[in-house]
């Protein structure tokens, strides 16, 4: 029942290849600028955090945030355009591809875009004084699951949206706070216990923590909890996204 999803993935990949340059620059620009500004600017005025330089500290977190931005924006702006103005979904649903396969194809594609952004960010880390450990190979599946999670959240927004403005709520009330409060820019372990608990309720925190562990090669005892949270959330959100897209498309 789910096999044709990769046809939708292939369609998106074909289109993406045409706009490769713009797509990559668009997805990576923001985290790169943060890395430069906060690392070279702010970073010089800050002592070491958790035994590393500030630049080395924020690098792994920015890998995780690149995946979040890239994955969720694709299923918001990209998918919403295909759903409404382009009517691509309508055309696809006239074929043997089912609405579930269509939604899954969109999610997996956006997660793929997320992973591409994450990998490029990862490849750039040595420029900022961080040589990642071999453990980063284990980070790839983590980033993929994180991509599925944020792509699904984006697709949920698309299923509920009545115009593009709607995505502003999600971006400013959800994505931006996650970016700022998931332990990318400051050490959560040094915070008040209440703040620590709140931070752990944010999905990005788990991806940031795992990314840091695997980049430094310092695997903490709670790796399993972080991985489990991401895995469970990604499957659950993908399921919700598929149900909501079906509800929107099949009257």
């Amino acid at each position, binding site marked *: 029942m789910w096999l044709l999803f990769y046809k939708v993935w292939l369609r998106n990949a074909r289109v993406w290849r045409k706009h490769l340059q713009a797509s990559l620059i668009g997805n990576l620009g923001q985290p790169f600028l943060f890395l430069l500004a906060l690392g070279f600017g702010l970073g010089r005025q800050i002592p070491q955090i958790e035994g590393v330089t500030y630049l080395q500290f924020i690098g792994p977190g920015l890998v995780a945030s690149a995946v979040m931005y890239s994955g969720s924006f694709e299923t918001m702006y990209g998918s919403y355009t295909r759903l409404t103005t382009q009517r691509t979904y*309508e*055309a696809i649903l006239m074929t043997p591809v089912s609405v579930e396969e269509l939604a899954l194809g969109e999610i997996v594609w956006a997660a793929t875009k997320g992973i591409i952004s994450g990998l490029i960010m990862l490849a750039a880390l040595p420029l900022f004084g961080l040589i990642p450990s071999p453990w980063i190979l284990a980070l790839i599946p983590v980033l993929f699951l994180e991509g599925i999670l944020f792509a699904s959240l984006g697709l949920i927004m698309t299923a509920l949206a009545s115009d593009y403005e709607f995505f502003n709520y999600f971006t400013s009330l959800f994505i931006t706070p996650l970016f700022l409060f998931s332990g990318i820019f400051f050490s959560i372990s040094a915070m008040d216990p209440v703040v620590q608990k709140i931070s752990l309720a944010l999905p990005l925190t788990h991806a940031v923590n795992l990314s840091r562990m695997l980049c430094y090669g310092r695997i903490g005892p709670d790796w399993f909890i972080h991985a489990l949270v991401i895995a469970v959330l990604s499957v659950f959100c993908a399921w919700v996204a598929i149900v909501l897209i079906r509800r929107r498309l099949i009257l």
Partner: protein
Amino acid sequence: MTLAAKNPLVEIRSLTKRFGDRMAVKDLDLCIYPEECLGLLGPNGAGKTTTIYMLLGLVRYTSGKITVFGESIPERLRQVKLRIGVVSQGDNLDPDLTVYENLLVYASYFGIERSVAGKRADDLLDFFALKNRSNEIIQHLSGGQRRRLLLSRALINNPELLILDEPTIGLDPQARHLIWERLQDLISQGTTMLLTSHYMEEVSRLANRVLILDEGEIVAQGDPKKMVADLIGSEVFEVVDSPKNLTALKEALRSCKVNVEKIADRFFIYVREPCTELDTMAITLRHVSKRPANLEDLFLKLTGRTLREN
């Protein structure tokens, strides 16, 4: 062999769809037989597109039964869709892809092998006079070219049933005639079609059976020529004159077998049997035109002249 002697490709029984309080389709029975072109007519909101969407599993029906190729909808939707081609209302070509890519990518959704798809795409672009536009982006195509590409796309899987929802809407006469020619070729090759349209001329040319829907119900069905002859007559006189003269005309026609309809200062006289009085009077009247009765007359008679804007 008569139509009814064959097994229908599409069989719809007691189909009902309710959107909240509104009944979009009421207890509809409809069959489409192999190699026929069935014209589905009706004013806006009559339930034509809803019926097509139910057939394609895009709208869930409230009650009734739909089978296509003997398979039940929506349970066997995927198997059915493999054998159907659809041109939906309006343009839903993929603007991110070229003309040729539109066909290849669409073929991939049907699981058609790349080499087979390439060959079919070439043939279809040839058939629809789009060969020299293969690598063009969609935004550069004219309205007529887009419609021809939509038709090509609908045929990429060699469908046994072609569903056309207003296939020539908004096109100029040249573009429309080219599409009609191609559709006539397909009909003569034995392609079964379901056609909805607001262009009565289109339906008269292509459909060999017509079904008129209004407010979700069938109001008439049959051979369009026979329906026009039976329900309207053979000829129509349209007369514009002063109220006095029109009243006199109506009196004079009492002995004739005609139906007279008055709209503003215009008389529509539907002639069922030849009427010498009318022919004589026609010469003396100021503005009169005589034409064969057509499907549009029938359509207006059955569905009324009130605008359906919601």
